[in-house]
């Protein structure tokens, strides 16, 4: 097309009746909008919260609604539009029939080798329409996974994915229940906390100390916070009903607990105090279990597992997960919760004691590179940070672990954020569970509402002068490297979750940032210190790692920071007969991680957050093609290397994965990756460079086979495998 053509009447026609908005909002939409705006108010995170609620209630955030929101928050309408069009969870126009959101995380890409994506045509240009690729759903054990509405679908096959995408297999999920409104209730004082501890201590203790061969008094049914909520709900219902039918409901209690991390992906029932555990329970087995208990309350089911370690014995951040009801503030207090907050608030030297304790045990923020958490908080306090942000972001590959923690022990995060606020001098906190993970959001909202109801959050906490307001605002599920400035902009300045320049960040309000795991660990360390139990250093020096892959049992493990790959693999190697493929290496750190060949790597892996174990049948070239696809879609587009470089890498690598490249292509990829790594603004660009160059370094031969001989050693790419 010539320039003159473009200049000519390039389809320019002024809008008819543009005044007041070409697109009128219906009266109903505006009424809903007004209500949400009044409900959410102004304050921190108002824009994210408003948009999320409006999307949920109206199904989309139309320009007319965006304008109303913009006016209320005194933002330019284009700023609101930027957020709506940037965030995958939000849409500006109605999406008929719901959108199938396919997980583009590394684990999902590895386990289906892109077959699912291709089946639903999501790899077309720009990925618009009814199928979207989202960075990571935090459901690596169910890979490949997708979401339809609020229903998560796991272990997809190309066929089932196609059915979902075409709507022939659509189910609608339960809508998000709005958080509890402030129900007036008496605030608890210290004496009441002590009473609760005395009353519940024994019961909580009995869950942690199994009595082999003992009778079953409690059945701990997992609540599905790490797998299928629906399946867990159905199993729990069957158990309760069967117990009632058999008159056992007076002697056997059913408690819903979070996931303990070892059994992710399966509904689990633990018998207390007998101590055995049943994995992969469905409705039928649940009924059988109750029938067996009816006959003999001290017998164990035939295939029950006996945990090697005493349950809840090791003082990790997951110690309450799987043992304590995450919806019960009393159980949390009964198991030692809020003792740390109580000590810090009421003792004369509380804050100094907490700082000393944290410094002496060497607790660092996640990632390992950071300084001591206590010093960081003290520095924030000096700088006058008024807000504590506790985000779960997809970028850091910690999402599965954080999700599990928020779903299994939300009060520990609440208490951790309160403590962080005390130490950093903040008066407000925001917990940011991943948007769309409705059960996690609700769990957090409930926890905060319960804590507020009992005076543990809000003004005059525990009758002291300390006041701390805590809000729950779901974080957009973006892969972008959500650094501090991006989070501050999102929550405190009403912008999209994009990294910003230093100059722009300088104009943003200050905040302290602590991830959920570190918050829970901070709380755990101080709790241990209060009870004088020892082991503070051990707890401080552990990290949660998610391990997935076809050759291993998926798990979220708490391992020492120094744990090496073989150490971790030893804990999770799948003993089943079905998987015989040899492990050839790992991708650690998720989409922006590092490929490593072999399993004898001596370096510590715990800080990388996730390990995807690669077996012989996984084609690295194809996996990386998928990873780059996700990365190119998710790059925020702000810095040029991140936008143009990552896209160029994707396009170049796609050529390689199809057997179409040559050595020159590989050289260009190397150069471009090095350039992006050296100049990109944020961790997404740098991580892209890392994942590409580590793949070339660790699996150079495998890639070369694609390029030189048009062969795929893993036999995945539709090309002849090596040697054939």
């Amino acid at each position, binding site marked *: 097309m010539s320039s003159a053509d473009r200049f000519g009447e390039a389809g320019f026609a002024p809008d008819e009746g543009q005044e007041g908005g070409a697109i009128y909002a219906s009266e109903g939409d505006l009424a809903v909008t007004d209500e949400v705006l009044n409900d959410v108010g102004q304050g921190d995170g108002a824009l994210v919260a408003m948009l999320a609620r409006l999307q949920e209630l109206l199904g989309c955030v139309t320009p007319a609604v965006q304008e109303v929101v913009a006016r209320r928050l005194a933002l330019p309408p284009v700023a609101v539009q930027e957020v709506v069009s940037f965030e995958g969870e939000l849409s500006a126009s109605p999406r008929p029939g719901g959108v199938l959101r396919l997980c583009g995380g590394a684990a999902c890409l590895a386990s289906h080798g892109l077959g699912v994506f291709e089946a639903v045509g999501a790899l077309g240009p720009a990925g618009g329409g009814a199928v979207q690729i989202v960075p990571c759903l935090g459901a690596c054990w169910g890979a490949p996974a997708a979401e339809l509405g609020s229903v998560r679908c796991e272990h997809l096959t190309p066929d089932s994915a196609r059915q979902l995408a075409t709507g022939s297999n659509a189910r609608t999920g339960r809508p998000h229940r709005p958080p509890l409104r402030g129900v007036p209730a008496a605030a608890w004082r210290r004496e009441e906390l002590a009473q609760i501890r005395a009353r519940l201590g024994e019961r909580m203790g009995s869950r942690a100390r199994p009595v082999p061969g003992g009778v079953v008094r409690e059945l701990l049914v997992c609540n599905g916070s790490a797998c299928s909520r629906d399946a867990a709900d159905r199993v729990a219902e069957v158990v309760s009903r069967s117990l009632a039918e058999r008159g056992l409901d007076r002697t056997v209690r059913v408690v819903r607990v979070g996931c303990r991390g070892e059994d992710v992906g399966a509904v689990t029932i633990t018998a207390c105090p007998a101590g055995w555990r049943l994995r992969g329970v469905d409705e039928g087995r649940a009924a059988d279990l109750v029938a067996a208990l009816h006959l003999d309350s001290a017998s164990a089911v035939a295939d029950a597992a006996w945990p090697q370690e005493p349950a809840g014995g090791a003082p990790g951040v997951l110690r309450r997960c799987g043992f304590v009801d995450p919806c019960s503030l009393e159980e949390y207090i009964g198991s030692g919760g809020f003792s740390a907050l109580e000590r810090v608030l009421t003792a004369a030297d509380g804050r100094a004691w907490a700082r000393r304790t944290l410094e002496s045990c060497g607790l660092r923020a996640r990632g390992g590179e950071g300084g001591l958490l206590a010093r960081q908080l003290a520095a924030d306090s000096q700088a006058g940070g008024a807000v504590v942000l506790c985000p779960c972001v997809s970028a850091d590959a910690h999402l599965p672990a954080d999700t599990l923690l928020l779903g299994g022990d939300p009060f520990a995060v609440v208490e951790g954020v309160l403590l962080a606020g005390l130490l950093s001098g903040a008066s407000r906190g925001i917990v940011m569970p991943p948007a769309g993970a409705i059960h996690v959001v609700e769990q957090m909202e409930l926890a905060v509402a319960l804590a507020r109801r009992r005076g543990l959050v809000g003004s005059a906490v525990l009758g002291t002068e300390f006041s701390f307001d805590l809000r729950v605002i779901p974080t957009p599920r973006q892969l972008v490297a959500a650094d501090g400035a991006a989070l501050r902009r999102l929550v405190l300045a009403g912008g999209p979750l994009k990294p910003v320049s230093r100059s722009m960040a300088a104009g943003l309000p200050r905040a302290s940032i602590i991830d959920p795991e570190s918050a829970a660990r901070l709380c755990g360390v101080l709790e241990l210190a209060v009870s004088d139990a020892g082991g503070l250093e051990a707890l401080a020096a552990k990290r949660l790692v998610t391990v997935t892959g076809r050759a291993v049992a998926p798990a979220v493990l708490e391992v020492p920071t120094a744990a090496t790959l073989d150490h971790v693999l030893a804990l999770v190697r799948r003993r089943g007969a079905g998987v015989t493929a040899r492990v050839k290496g790992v991708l650690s750190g998720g989409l922006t991680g590092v490929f490593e060949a072999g399993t004898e790597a001596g370096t510590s892996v715990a800080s990388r957050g996730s390990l995807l174990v690669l077996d012989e049948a996984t084609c690295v070239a194809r996996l990386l093609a998928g990873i780059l696809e996700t990365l190119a879609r998710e790059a925020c587009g702000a810095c040029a290397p991140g936008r*143009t470089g990552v896209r160029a890498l994707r396009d170049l690598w796609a050529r390689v994965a199809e057997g179409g490249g040559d050595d020159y292509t590989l050289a260009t990829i190397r150069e471009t990756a090095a350039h992006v790594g050296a100049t990109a603004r944020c961790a997404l660009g740098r991580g892209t460079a890392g994942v590409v160059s580590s793949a070339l370094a660790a699996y150079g031969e495998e890639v070369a086979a694609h390029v030189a001989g048009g062969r795929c050693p893993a036999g995945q790419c539709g090309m002849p495998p090596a040697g054939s």
Partner: protein
Amino acid sequence: MPEVVSVTVDGRSLAARAGETVLELLRRTGIWVPTLCFDQRVTAYGGCRLCVVSRRDGAGGLLPACDTEVVPGMVLETSSTEVLNARRRQLALLLTEHRLDCPICPATGRCRLEFLLHRIGVPGERLPRRTAEIAPGVRSPLIVHDPERCVTCTLCIRLCDEVQGVAAVGLERIGDAVRVATFAGRVLDCEYCGQCVAACPAGALLVRPPLDSVSRWRTGAVTTTCSLCPCGCQVEVTVRDGRVVAADARLDRPPNRGLLCGKGRFGHDVLVSPERVTTPLVRREGRLSPVTWEEALRAVTDGARAASAQGRARVAFGTPRLTCEDAYLLQDLLRRGMGSPHVGIGLAAGARALVEGLWPVLGTARSTADFEDLAMADAVLVLRADPTRTHPLVKTTLLAGMRRRGQRVVLAHALSGGLERHVTDFLAVRPLGEEALLYGVCRHLLTSSGSRARNATSNPDLQAFAAAVAAWDDEVVQGLSGIGRQGVGALARLLARARRVVIALPSGLGVPGDEAAVARAAAALIVLLGRHGAPGCGVLVLGEKSNLQGCLDVGLHPRFLPAYRRASAPGWEPVEAMSKAGEGKVGFLYLVGHDPLGGWPRATHRRDGLENAGFVVVQDAFLTKTTRAADVVLPTAILAEREGSVVGGDGVRRRLHAAVQAPAGVAGDGEIFRELGRRLGTPLPDRGEVERILSGIFSGGLPVGDAPVLVPPAPPPPPRTWRGTLLDVSPQLLHSGSVTRYSALLRELAPIVAVRLAPEDIASLGLAPGGRAHLTTGTGEEMMVVRADRTVRPGSAVVVWQSNAEGLGAFLAVDGEARLVDVRRSK
């Protein structure tokens, strides 16, 4: 003195200022660094990564120079192979999303990407191009958007938000689909300042042909002063084949430093308007007929001689758009050539504020603050009109002050104010309440203990002033201005605490209220604050037309000779003169660039004024309403066709340089005056002589006003009450109605004439947005479209005028009066 830190650059030790960026240091040192997304006027974005330098002192790596602060002991390399390769590769990557149609691209020759490609080159490897199709996100009647050339530097977005305060465009979407877009894909709704087009480094934003359709290397450029408003912007006019094809501004030229408004950038098609008069006209048998210059000038001199012979007055009004030189000649022509004292600038907004406001108090009829003072001030009080529409440079200066320096800007405004959403403090004064607010502040300063004003007893007029101001007590001030004791006190404290204070009085003919009284009060306040004459302080009066100040300086005023020497026999003021004309006492009326029938308040002249004048000469570039009553019409040169000088609202004299020639048959104002002088037997000074005289005036010849007199205010009037809707007739941003309305482009961009009302008023008056309303004032009536506007205060109606100057005259108020309008649904 800023702290100095030592850094090493390319092996050289340099002294850097603490807190400055690496780029600032390198530029200061003269080390060239390529930049694409950087612009000194906006926050650094660090997006293009072309300005990378490498850091070699431990914390190694490539860093963007624009977004990295200097650190003591930093060791940098700016031209190592690593750095140069990174820049080349980045440029190559950027080019993968830029459509390379350079041979036919109008941006060729001024395209930043092209320049960088020449300067730093790209590596040899071929990179895959962006394949995703990206639809244009900016639709506009004027600006052409080509997203396939866009490299997402966001300069347009940042300038629109940070400099203009408009935020009409933003980013949309994610990843490589990211693009620049307007809200909801609507037609660009903005001030059309064109900053985005000027800043676009890749030709993705261009102006629709015929503007901007020619590559810059095939054109010539002339820098001149924009003479559309008193901001005095320096504009670089691009000319091809004798026609203006574009206008731009340079970053290093004050006062606008790269900024222009829509009028200054796009209004130049006025010059080639088909409606221009290109030949003199003389009325014959009731009709204006084209004649030669000889015939026309003879008719004019005959008319003047006849008036003189009849003993009837000769009167001339020169528009404040005349250059200083031409204005000098006009007053000389009248005073010497025709022997008449009745010469002036006619009815012009801001004139009375200067002459009757500042002069009595400060002893000077010039603003005592300029744009630099405005930029430097710690606190600015803005009264009267709306600078976002009338004086775009004032708005951008204040915006920069607020956003970058934490300047406090208080807007006290009665009607709608576009500045309202930007300012740090807003006072909703009642209409006509400005004077009361100012004297309220004065009184507060005089009565509060410890204030400087109270202690300044050395000033002899202070006691009389204090006694008069005492009458403006809290109750009176509240009644008149609507601002209570607390608000007045807070404003007084803010102004008293600020080290540098500017009071800005932008004006407009349609703004209700006595501009002279407000200016007097403002001048008194500045004196009382002890800030008169201090750097960064003063009163800034801004009229509507480009050379109001210069015209007064050179004596185009019935009471002042050049350099404000008192005229021994003062001439008639404009209203008086029109009234005399109505009585038949004027034999010769010479209207240079004035259109009393169209643009003056109808109440200021009797309808028969022009009819009863003996001989009427209209000198203008277009046929106006007044030419209906003219005996002779003389066509003149305008804007970029003129040479000479104008004095901006800030008191600075700036040169005009003719960029194009006036159409054949059109003469310059000065040429005509000289020719008339010669024919009347009084040759006027030649060009060199005029320049000598003006140099004398402008270099030290003007009264400086170093002995201010606190003129006691008159007793406060009784509180005013209104029943009905208050009318604000305002010029609108894109053209003010006299010259710019002949620009086809601006006319297209400007919103249609409408009455703007607060949404709640629309409902209560039973109107509907988009419907028609019938507006009636005491002097006229009009039908207009109704628009809802949230910036309009309930109880008032804003008519932003456009081309129907006839209606405008009916709606304009005489000074000191508020206009009420009756708005009804039209049947």
